[in-house]
């Protein structure tokens, strides 16, 4: 039973159910008129997520085959870059993120990696921010970087 509970599919369904419960609790304790539709939606969410959890529990066997992957590194880098944009501006977090993406997609020769990073992150930032004047988040108040 514990092994089944630890299966990623069950954990995901359970996670959805628990998030639904927390949000539903928040909705039921809020103002009645503004929370009318959220209460209906979140109650349905909880019921369906619970049903999915039970179905997944009955279907899966064991913990599932887990394999070590570097994908979480890419995910973490993406999330960190997204958070950092607010304080560091668009360009600085984009450069390492693009370099890492290229590296992880097996582009490892130094020259293509460096040129690719500069063109994709630096070039597109320059095109949108300075040429097309579609302002992206900046580090400096002047808007130059």
């Amino acid at each position, binding site marked *: 039973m514990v092994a089944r509970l630890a299966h*990623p*599919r069950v954990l*995901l*369904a359970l996670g*959805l159910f628990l998030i*639904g419960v927390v*949000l539903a609790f*928040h*909705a039921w304790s*809020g*103002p009645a*008129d*503004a*929370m*009318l*539709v*959220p209460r209906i*939606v*979140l109650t*349905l*969410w909880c019921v*369906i*997520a619970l*049903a*999915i959890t039970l*179905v997944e529990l009955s279907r899966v066997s064991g913990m599932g085959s887990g394999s070590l*992957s570097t*994908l979480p590194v*890419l*995910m973490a880098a*993406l*999330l960190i*870059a*997204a*958070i950092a*944009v*607010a304080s560091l501006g*668009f360009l600085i977090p*984009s450069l390492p*993120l*693009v370099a890492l*993406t*290229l590296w*992880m*997609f*097996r*582009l490892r020769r130094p020259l*293509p990696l460096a040129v*690719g*990073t500069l063109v*994709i*992150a630096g070039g*597109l*930032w320059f095109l*949108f921010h300075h040429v*097309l*004047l*579609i302002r*992206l*988040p900046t580090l400096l108040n002047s808007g130059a970087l």
Partner: protein
Amino acid sequence: MDIILAAVSDAFTWQALLAIVIGTWAGIIIGGLPGLGSVVGLTIFLPFTFGMDTITSMALLIGVYCGSVYGGSITAILINTPGTPQSAATTFDGYPMTQQGRVDEALGWATFASFFGGVFSCVILIFCAPQLAKFAVNFGSIEVFALICLAMMCIVGVSKGSVMKGLVCGMVGFFLSMVGSDPITGADRFTFGSYALSSGLTLIPVVVGAFALSEIFMRFATRDDPSAKIPEATLRFPKLSEWFKRLVELVRGSLIGSFIGALPGTGAAAAAFISYATAQKLSPRRDRLGKGEPDGIIASESSNNAVTGSSFIPTLALGIPGDVVTAMMMGAMVIHGITPGVRLMVDQAQTVYSLFIVLIIVNVAMLILSKPSIGLFRYLFRLHQGYIMAAIVIFSFIGAATVRGNPLDLVVAAMTGILAYALRRADYPMAPLVIGMVLGPELESSLRRGLLIKRGDFLEFFTHSGISMTLFSLLALFIVWTVWSSIAQQRQASTASRHAESNSAK
């Protein structure tokens, strides 16, 4: 007649034609880049129009608008990443066709259906704009609520693997659309004290995360697999006999798009989902929808491009912009001396007819420019997969950051991407999440307004008007039919398995 001739001569100046070619070409490319859509395209080109005359400037902007709606389908078909939310429904059948090696056919149908829908809505616009505007006015909150409920039924259709998983994703999308200020009372909902969250979550970061970023994660797992490479983009237009065979689907999608576009507050993404839901019920090849059937692409693309023409009906005839894009177009019109409203057809008839003719030329230009545009994408997708994935990351970030200049949108896109990857790995469909987010806000606000009108009595919705009664009856029929057909399918499957078991026992 003199007015129409004068309008034709206004629209066929070399400046206007050049503006159409540049605008449409740029629109297709911008629309094809994940995260960037019609709004970004119009934002880029709007400042360039200040020095131009009225028709040339509107030709440029209409070209960008129509081109971007079509362009979104290219990457939706090629890499399962819709360039714009309007093309999200195109992935349902477009990408399976690509996986089956029918990319040329898929792009051909997308192009032809977009052209057909665009021209069809222009004809509707020319002949029926005043009548359609009058009919659209009959659609109050309760009628819109019934219509959106009907459209929500497509969640069941696009959740082929598990309806429950589709429904929960629909609920997640609907919930995401409710974060921020309540549209009626203005009270904060699910902001947890965060000032940044009080302005709510917008569609583009969620679509970028659900499709573009999650696709990067999915491709990461298969980056060493040669069969997972992005296919060569080629275009093959359907033969006359093929499109004649699907004429009913083309006309139906275009009619739905033309009508939805005329309703303020709906937009091309909603039209594409409603049209797809209708195709699931009415197409003679509905059993194959979702598995690589051109009818699915036709339903989505003909309707979303039909919106480009008909969305001008409330904008021009009533002065009511239907969505952000038409609001921007309306702003551009005002800058260039066109004052939308009920007096427009009387005071500036020549200019209005010129715009209608420009719309038709733009759709023809889109058909002609589709081949070189797809050629450009073919060249881009020949590059190392790493460059494409890194470019998608940056375009997704730019798209999310430019929606409203809120850095929180980037975090939303990244988190949605990670969540969407986990959901996709566990066989949860992503389309219902976007459907919930697209249709949710309109469903909620129409329900709430309807309840205010009916003083809280929901049962009165069903007897409010002839239109609402018809729509609710159709909804009830669809529900009964869906339940009945799923029970019938289960019975068939269990009978077949029993036969197989008894045969193997013998």
